[in-house]
């Protein structure tokens, strides 16, 4: 029992808020801090992957492993920046950029056929055969004007997803 982490000062809150482009209000940042400290049980400054996996709702998410790679070793400021993609105050562009980063497994700025296939595999598991997955993806890519060998960059993502109404928001509970 007892709060092992130090209190956030007003300066800290403002710095974090700057870093995430004011995606969250100051109250939300304090809430996120409490959550971060709750998950960072060893007060090591970052949340180990195991802790995320001990949240059952996260562990049953098909994309949990990919997200864990992105969440690995983040300090609180980076944690808030990560979550800023889910704020209602963030632009659509930022959300699309986040989605791009999830696909771009090797972080080289290009998303290949295999990258998209990988995510599709995570999402569908054994309920679609590998062959069928490839077929679907090839067909859908060709219809959109890409080939199996073309790699998609961020601007392409913006074009493809730019018109859809992306609903990617979470509400931060304020204690």
């Amino acid at each position, binding site marked *: *029992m007892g709060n092992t982490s130090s209190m956030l000062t007003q300066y800290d809150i403002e710095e974090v808020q700057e870093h995430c482009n004011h995606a969250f209000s100051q109250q939300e940042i304090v809430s996120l801090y409490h959550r971060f400290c709750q998950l960072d*049980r060893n007060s090591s400054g970052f949340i180990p992957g195991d802790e995320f*996996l001990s*949240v059952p709702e996260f*562990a049953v998410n098909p994309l949990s492993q990919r997200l864990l790679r992105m969440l690995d070793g983040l300090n609180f400021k980076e944690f808030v920046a990560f*979550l800023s993609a889910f704020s209602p105050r963030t632009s659509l562009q930022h959300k699309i950029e986040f989605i791009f980063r999830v696909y771009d497994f090797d972080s080289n700025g290009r998303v290949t056929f295999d990258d998209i296939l990988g995510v599709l595999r995570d999402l569908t598991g054994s309920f679609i055969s590998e062959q069928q997955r490839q077929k679907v993806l090839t067909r859908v890519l060709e219809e959109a004007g890409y080939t199996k060998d073309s790699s998609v960059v961020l601007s392409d993502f913006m074009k493809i997803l730019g018109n859809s109404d992306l609903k990617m928001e979470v509400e*931060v509970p304020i204690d």
Partner: protein
Amino acid sequence: MAGLATSSAEMDLDRPNIDEYLTVESIREAPKKLHLRDLLDISPTLKEAAGAIVDDSFTRCFKSNPSEPWNWNIYLFPLWCLGVVIRYGILFPFRVIILVAGWIVFFAAFSLVHFLLGEHNKWKREIERKLVEMICSVFVASWTAVIKYHGPRPSMRPQQVFVANHTSMIDFIILEQMTAFAVIMQKHPGWVGFIQKIIVESLGCIWFNRTEAKDREIVARKLREHIQGVDNNPLLIFPEGTCVNNHYTVMFKKGAFELGCAVCPVAIKYNKIFVDAFWNSKKQSFTMHLVQLMTSWAVVCDVWYLEPQYIRPGETPIEFAERVQEMISVRAGLKKVPWDGYLKYFRPSPKLIERKQQIFAESVLQRLEEK
């Protein structure tokens, strides 16, 4: 959850309404032709993950709320310091002395009785029971516990079990102080395990092992045997299977509710103003937990013995368990949550991930059909 019924060794069986908490929200209503953007748009799944990161109803059950920083001003701070001095400097040593003295008396008397009197001597059981009740009272005194019991005192007869919500191992001590219960417990390491082995055995306790897959069946059999016995102490079970923070109750495992006997609910609520009695076993050892209790002013709690319940015709054990969970939660002012407490120790079954994958896969395939 009928679709997931498997062998009884699986923990899935105990999960009544988990689906409500884990469904994929956004299956597009009217299947339309599949476009690239539909495949690339993983925002619903990401949103669920982020939602779980930001807050989730499971970890809330095991959160020990940190102490709020007070306004340290000129009069509060010295008073608090004085309080600390009194608690650690005067109360704590005094309580330790009481505890140690109590243990010495207990061990002396217990060893005498245990080794001198014959194996199945009736008096032996009686005296050992009384001694255990005594040492529990010593413990209770060492925390200056103020316990208000409500409701009729448990009687010793066969074909009944007692179930209670679980906050800490001291739940057992508090209840044991008034009536000698037999209890079903997880074996702990260290000195607690030692005490469990020697002393609590005399009460007729049952051990379980969370990590043992077939354990459930063995335990179920032992439970049934116990409640048949006329001479056995009334059995106390904590159906949540783990310590919860006394603001929530997690899913009651059905084991205690399918024995075909009366179930007597007991609700325990600790008053947090005096001390937070939640034993966060991930954060502190039991020793530290005891020290924390002994350096607080008091442990104040209410214990309600509720009316014995029987399974209703047409009610499944799971529904019975939920009904009793509801009774206890309402009485003690706790919020009900359908999570399985064992998720604290184990990951959720991969079947749950597969469920989601299946839903997504089907929606993709369905839309492929549309031309």
